[in-house]
């Protein structure tokens, strides 16, 4: 079980969190003006690296805040935890 650092509450067990997939997937500023391929990329294409991955988590059983972490998908080590408004 992961030990996840919530930027608001500190280190907590994974069971307190909900996974939100890859972080920094840009929502198109005006979805109506983008073509199908661009929209499909937003909907369906996600990074799947062997190594560091920025991802979203929600501390759903705690402060209910969404935030980002950078996690190594091989070792599960968490290199960074930061608030939504912080730069990636």
């Amino acid at each position: 079980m992961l030990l996840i650092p919530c930027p608001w509450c500190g280190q907590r067990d994974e069971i307190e969190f909900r996974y939100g997939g890859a972080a920094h997937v840009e929502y198109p500023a005006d979805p109506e003006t983008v073509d199908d391929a661009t929209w499909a990329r937003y909907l369906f294409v996600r990074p799947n690296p062997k190594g560091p991955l920025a991802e979203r988590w929600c501390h759903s059983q705690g402060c209910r805040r969404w935030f980002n972490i950078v996690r190594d998908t091989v070792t599960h080590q968490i290199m960074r935890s930061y608030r939504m408004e912080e730069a990636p």
Partner: protein
Amino acid sequence: MTRLASGGRIDRSRPLRFTFDALPHTGFAGDTLASALLANGVRVVSQSVTYGRLRGIFSAGVEEPNALVQVGGGTGSEPMLRATQVELYDGLVAESLNARGRLSPEPDVARYDKLFAHCDVLVVGGGSTGLAAALAAGKAGARVILADEQAEVGGTFLGGRDLIDGRPATDWLAEVATDLAALPEVRVLSRATAVGYYDQNCVLIAQRRTAHLGPAAPAAMARQRLWQVRAKQVVLATGAHERPMVFAENDRPGIMLAGAVRTYVNRYGVVPGHRAVIFTNNDSAYACAIDLDDAGLDVPAVVDVRPNPAGGWPDRVRERGIEVLAGQVVSDTAGGNRGLESVWAGQRIDCDLLCVSGGFNPAVHLFIQSQGRLRYDEILACFVPDEAPQAVAVAGAANGTFGLRDCIQEGLAAGAAAASAVGFGDGHPAGAPQVETVAEHPIVPFWLVPDESGATQFVDLERDVTVADVRRAVGAGMQSVEHVKRYTTIGTGSDQGKTAGINSAAIVGALLGQPVAAIGTTTFRPPYVPVSFALFAGRTRGQLFDPARVTPIHPWHVAHGAVFENVGQWKRPWYFPHDGETMEQAVLRECRAVREGVAAMDVSTLGKIDIQGTDALRFLNRIYTNAYDTLAVGHCRYGLMCKADGMVFDDGVVMHVGPDRYLATTTSGGAAAVLDWMEEWLQTEWPDFRVRLTSVSDQWATVAVAGPRSREVLRALAPAMAADAVSFPFMAIREGMVAGIPARVCRISFSGELAFEINVASWYGLRLWEAVMAAGEPFGITPYGTEAMHVLRAEKGYAIIGQDTDGTVTPQDLGMSWVVSKKKDFIGRRSHRRADTARPDRMHLVGLLPVEPEDLLPEGAQLILEPRQEPPVAIVGHVTSSYRSAALGRTFALALVKGGRDRMASQVYAPLPDRLHPATVTEPIFYDKEGLVRDG
């Protein structure tokens, strides 16, 4: 008897009676079941799983492959325990097992606990290394947990005869135990086996707390405890497992690991035979020869595969007149129904005990679980820990460091370093005690005695797998040790092949002409030892496994004989049967009451989200597919939401209850997911919105009063509230007193009838319900459940999200374009223009009328177009809802059908096991198409 007159760590003043396979025996306090059986001369303890061969106790610990027993009777009966780990108690009842145990058919009434703990340094293993590590870390001031699998700390050296500072090692042990007890931040867990090593130094420890007490176990004490420990640093001092030798007929009772024999002699005062031969490739087994010689056994020979064993240990043995057969192997054995009688080592040697040692495998199971990597050490002839991504150190025999002096030194260093890494001490441990050492003659790896057939050369004793099986696997083309494992079942027993794994890898290597280093090991996965499901369950059993949620009105439903249905965690009344009524009859009666009179339903389970803030309207417009700009305070509107891919996600009613304040209902099962979804968008995409969300599902109780006479009931309950169609129109909200309770009443309908939903603070829920039933009595008010509600809404063609949809259905597919705004953006809008979502032949929600009016199609039934087709037959859809209708006097269904809206009035067929069932495609609405009844 084979018990020595003195010595060992048993208490001869406390005899304990026990039975094994119904025969009475006696042992002593401090015995394991295995040591007591050996002391009573019990040599045969099981028959092997495939070949039915006789087997005896082979080891003295967790690695035991043969001595599996069932212990205890009745509800406390435990299957598949290792006799080597069962502590003896007075009255213990044990039975041998042939391959598998039996679970008690009675529920386990014992208590199992879970405990979460945190520490600076977790030390796994309480042998010499682990004790030294815990002592060094504890003295540095760190918070330490030491987990040891045995009843008393000391590990292997409880079974040895080493001297520390010139005194028996057990004196040092007692001092360390005292020192540890005096350190307030050190906690020693006994009978506690670390079974799993997970991410971020999360280690699961299974602790046995009362089983060793037998019937004397305190009833209030948890039988076992599962510790979930988070440690900043972990020191693995898990020791090593001795390797057997692989030769013909190597599985007879009386053939044992040499280190185990030492443990039985020195720790338990038991000699497991009368005349012993040693078979080894390393020095450690020479100590066994000396121990047995001192215990008074005949030791005719040490058979050593090494051509020229010399130095301290061989010399000591030779000095005693024990012959060392250098460069020899034991190639065969003979015996009878009591096990071993002789061995062949170039000559026949009579003996009833053969002590084997093929070297040692560091117990790297937890290290591998921690994602550590191994490397093969050519000099030590074993796999040792290499790199580790987590904050873990391995010390002592687990690290390939054998010998008491080096283990203590390495343990002290590892403990001090771990403490220092988290800010305690300078990393330099106190001085190590003096330990006498003997220069060792190096091990010579030896994996397999040449033998043509290999059919009795056992590699895995528990699984009954031989060298012949490994040959067959390699002959069939297996090259990976993982494949050989699955082909032969080596290592898949409850011992997980602790004595078999590395030998099998080496034999595979030998057959393929590759070194064992190139073959590698199989992956060790948790749990390290078998763990009972009861422990993992802990107290989350029965009602605590998945808590049931009930509404404030629940007691009334129970008192009135409701049959309940589970909706998520909710218990909802499914229907209220009268005496002698079937479900079908009850549901038809409840439906009729709604359509013809008046009926009431508890709808408190609906999710409710309070939405407040100056941007609340903006927020709703983006979340829902329809617009809310024109929704005035005091009115409500049906709303539908989609995921970004345009598929329907949930629905409900949005009430505008005040300036910048709304209350949105969700489906009963979707409340938490919808709130999470709203929060996600609010926090991640629209953080500038001034909106706050609060779940108020449990704060409101809601009663739906439906039917042509519902207005009369409302008038009786709330005389001051104008309820006529003009004053209280459809989709309006009124606040006022209902049955003397402050209430919010909405005129909404999920049944298609005139209906009012009355919301009150949940405290008043039951009182409101009782008032509704009393006020409705003159009109024959009928309580109805979810099944009638489903039928009624289906008659109107209202889809239930999650029943008529499955995450691949758009609002347009449901025929609900009317609820999708053309003017504003909302989540999922762009997806409705994608080529796939705009296809004309998507699955549409349609109605179905079975051609035979009594034909009830099963929900989930597939639909096809042509009655007579050659396979493959194209499926065009499936039934999503199907009921018997009181209003229609027949059956009907809803279905998702490919291009369904273009198939009106055509026929489809449900191919069911008995025959094809024809049905006609219709609009998905069967009752009051104009909505006159609802608006009345």
